[in-house]
């Protein structure tokens, strides 16, 4: 803990130190402190994974608190159990966080340089980034529910201010306000849950709560207790689902991402959202095995969320909205993987349990890194071309070849194709369900899993081919001129490093570490101690993946061999033949991204929320027509807007109160005092 504290103090002091300097030097100093902090975090997690005994208990901080609580035992009874501990799952999240913050710290100086904002704004932004990092790290370490909720709020606020970076635009303000409201609803759920927990168990400590529920489980089945458990689980999962961006609550994501600067959206989608999934794992830790219906509900909500997310992603033409909806899809898949782990455990299919947990962690890692890279390069594209519409991009490969390669890999990775981790996650889950089919029955759950995973996979390929081919291939469609420029080497590191690490760490050579996490989860949540059934399932999975990686390595070698040979063949360049049409500008007949997905939208139109408005004049020979495409998320359109309208209608009736006259306001104060007087008098008598 001391190392953590020191690194945080170092980060904050470095941030404050950077405030003293001018813009360029400030950014460099800030990024250096950020790099060092992330490296410290990374080394801590690596040491922990190699030998966990170093961090068995983190006592130094706890001792101080215990001394305080002994002196004033009653006053600090809540704080008495305040403690931080490294867990394997927590350190896994911190590992992802540290590498992403390392890449961001390289990226930030290059990216913010272009923004034209005042000094104080920049200082505030950097300060908030540091706070965000610290609060998330502590969130993964804490063992106290109250502290968890408080840190959750810290995280929400600091990320809100981070989004608010470019605060002059109305769109940014609206998105940020929507974000903070949604995050507070999530916070409210967590707070209610925490308070209820305290009411029933008498403690905020994770250990005590889980021990309480474990005891109740061992005793005879108590109906009241079961009800309490269901209520608590559903309240907490609502709170976490809002953060994770699951289907009915996903509407804040596509608004927040385009509004925020790219490094923030990269950080948000790769790690801030994932705290929701960490929360779901926390639920297992606290309450043990949830009721059987819960797992099925989670599976279906996850799959539907992924389906809705990817349909919207496919129909989007704005880069960041597209990536945000793709995040919704991935979050849905993650929740589905988590749900199928519980499903496997409830049905005592350990193979499904192990494979889906392994899939969850690999998918999580790969998605975090590839999405981070995709968002960072999207930020560069938007900044360099001053455009975020895919319809006006194109041909970027001729200007920025390094960006193109990074995006090709991240597109392959995010569209769940081999050899990246998203594919391995889906492969694992399908193997798990195949095993389930063989040993049990072909019930309704595996059917929907196979069907929807297939459709989602196909649409994912569609949406990412749309993104990659229309943005990077062909000829530039925009009207402004862009200059050919190679990225600096350091910037390329921030784009390529996450992809390389994702590829390495999702390979079979690291599965032993994932198995350690799985063992910890099963030990802490379900009290499976030294279960041979569990360990027996890990061996075949590992063997499968050793043979899988042999094939993949051969595939890559053969690919490079062929490419090496093919690269030597000379070619001539000619203009594309377009049915005899000749013009000086080549892009005149190019397919745009909205025309690319037009057949798709015609199939799934009700789910996409896209409206095409035609302004045609009724004339025999119409001269000019305008076509406008509008996108409004279906939840926003069908659920939120009517509710907000009704609330507005109700509040409109009270507008007379705000008359603008000082006398009236004094009168209100007087009335208020009189009412209080009357109430107290009534109570007195």
């Amino acid at each position: 803990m001391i190392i953590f504290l020191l690194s945080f103090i170092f980060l904050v002091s470095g941030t404050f130190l950077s405030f003293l300097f001018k813009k360029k030097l400030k950014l460099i100093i800030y990024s250096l402190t950020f790099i060092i902090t992330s490296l410290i975090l990374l080394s801590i997690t690596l040491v922990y994974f190699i030998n966990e005994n170093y961090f068995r208990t983190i006592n130094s901080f706890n001792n101080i608190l215990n001394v305080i609580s002994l002196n004033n035992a009653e006053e600090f009874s809540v704080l008495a159990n305040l403690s931080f501990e490294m867990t394997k799952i927590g350190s896994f999240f911190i590992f992802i966080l540290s590498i992403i913050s390392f890449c961001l710290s390289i990226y930030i100086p290059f990216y913010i340089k272009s923004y034209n904002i005042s000094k104080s704004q920049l200082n505030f932004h950097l300060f908030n980034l540091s706070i965000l990092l610290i609060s998330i790290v502590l969130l993964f370490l804490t063992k106290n529910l109250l502290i968890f909720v408080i840190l959750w709020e810290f995280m929400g606020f600091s990320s809100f201010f981070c989004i608010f970076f470019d605060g002059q635009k109305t769109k940014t303000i609206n998105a940020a306000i929507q974000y903070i409201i949604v995050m507070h609803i999530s916070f409210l759920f967590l707070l209610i849950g925490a308070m209820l927990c305290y009411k029933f168990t008498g403690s905020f400590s994770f250990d005590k709560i889980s021990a309480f529920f474990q005891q109740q489980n061992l005793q005879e089945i108590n109906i009241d207790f079961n009800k309490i458990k269901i209520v608590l689980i559903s309240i907490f999962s609502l709170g976490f689902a809002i953060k994770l961006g699951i289907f009915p609550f996903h509407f804040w994501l596509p608004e927040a991402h385009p509004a925020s600067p790219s490094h923030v959206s990269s950080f948000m989608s790769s790690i801030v959202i994932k705290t929701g999934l960490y929360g779901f794992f926390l639920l297992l830790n606290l309450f043990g095995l949830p009721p059987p219906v819960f797992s099925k509900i989670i599976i279906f909500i996850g799959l539907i969320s992924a389906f809705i997310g990817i349909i919207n992603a496919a129909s989007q033409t704005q880069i960041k909205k597209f990536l945000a909806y793709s995040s919704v899809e991935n979050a849905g898949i993650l929740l589905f993987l988590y749900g199928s782990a519980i499903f496997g455990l409830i049905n005592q299919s350990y193979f499904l349990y192990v494979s889906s947990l392994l899939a969850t962690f690999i998918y999580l890692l790969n998605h975090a890194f590839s999405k981070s890279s995709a968002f960072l390069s999207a930020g560069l594209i938007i900044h360099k071309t001053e455009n975020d519409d895919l319809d006006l991009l194109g041909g970027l490969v001729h200007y920025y070849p390094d960006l193109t390669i990074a995006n090709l890999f991240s597109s392959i990775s995010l569209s769940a194709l081999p050899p990246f981790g998203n594919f391995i996650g889906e492969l694992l889950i399908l193997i798990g369900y195949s095993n389930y089919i063989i040993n049990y029955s072909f019930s309704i759950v595996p059917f929907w899993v196979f069907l929807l995973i297939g459709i989602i996979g196909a649409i994912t390929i569609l949406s990412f081919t749309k993104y990659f081919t229309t943005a990077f291939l062909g000829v530039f469609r925009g009207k402004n001129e862009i200059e050919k420029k190679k990225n600096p080497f350091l910037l390329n590191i921030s784009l390529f490093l996450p992809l390389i690490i994702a590829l390495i760490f999702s390979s079979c050579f690291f599965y032993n570490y994932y198995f350690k996490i799985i063992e910890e989860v099963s030990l802490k949540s379900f009290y499976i101690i030294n279960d041979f059934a569990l360990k027996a399932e890990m061996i075949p999975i590992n063997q499968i993946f050793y043979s899988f990686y042999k094939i993949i390595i051969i595939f890559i070698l053969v690919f490079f061999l062929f490419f090496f040979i093919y690269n030597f063949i000379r070619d001539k360049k000619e203009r594309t033949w377009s049915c005899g049409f000749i013009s000086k500008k080549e892009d005149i007949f190019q397919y745009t991204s909205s025309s690319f997905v037009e057949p798709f939208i015609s199939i799934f139109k009700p789910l996409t929320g896209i409206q095409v408005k035609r302004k045609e004049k009724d004339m025999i020979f119409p001269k000019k027509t305008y076509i406008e495409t509008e996108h409004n998320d279906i939840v926003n359109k069908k659920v939120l807007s009517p509710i907000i309208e009704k609330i507005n209608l109700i509040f409109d009736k009270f507008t007379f109160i705000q008359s603008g006259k000082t006398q009236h306001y004094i009168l209100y104060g007087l009335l208020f005092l009189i009412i209080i007087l009357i109430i107290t008098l009534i109570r007195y008598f």
Partner: protein
Amino acid sequence: MKGIIFSLIKIFLIIFLPPLMIGIINRVKTTWAGKYGQSIFQPFYDIIKLIKKSIIRSTSSSFILKIALVLQFISTIFALLLIPFGKIKPFIYFEGDFFLFIGLLGLSTLSQIIIAMESAGSFQGMGASREINFSIFVEPAILLLFASMIFYTKSYTLNKMFVEFAFLSLEKIMVGIILGVSFFLIILIEGKRIPIDDPATHLELTMIHEAMILDLSGKDLAISLYSGYLKIFIFSLITANIFIPSFISIELSILLLISIVLFIAILIGFIESLFPRVRMSHIPDFMLLVLSLSVIIVALMFTMNT
């Protein structure tokens, strides 16, 4: 020794059968039309001719085109290596390789789209858009068909799934026939044959696959064409494997396999000469037909189990 001979046979079949299938399809079509027709080895000559030619690429293309061409070819080849030849084991197999098969096909689709969009032309874009949009329902159909085979054969290696699937009971005969029909329809979809797309058309507005490779030439075109042939061959192999019983000897199974594959080629030729191309707006319905067939198999399994 036997293993070496079998792998030589497999390599021979992989090289010669795919173009031969196309040759047979074309020959059947010309025979139906009452013409003398081209030799059934014409696709070989075409490909050899194309390999000898030099390459002309679009000015808008880049190094990504080369990557995509090689990626398409290699991923299709690797997908083919996962499929068993009758009772001969495939080159590579492991538990759960059915999803690697689908992933590799996805990779080849992705690179096909990249190849098309590299040319910055309108027809190529149109073809790419149609290809990818119409294939949304094929992937879940293949997955569901595989799932039903997993259920019946109790294994999830493609090798065992195909070898151990036998027509032994009434239920399995029904399922097997639906499986065969659906995979046959998938050949037509993935190979872009007639009810979906007309490879012989000369009107770009109605083309799908041909429009995508309109701008390729020489060796590029040869690679792309051959990958297309391989895709047809892969799914005909799968269809043939379903109908091969598990009790016959290895030598007999390979003969049966070749004859079924050639029969499929003749059947495609019949279909191409008897049916017109479906209207573009009706193609999604055709795709949904395959998906609903696969759902019917699952429904059959539900009813049989309970």
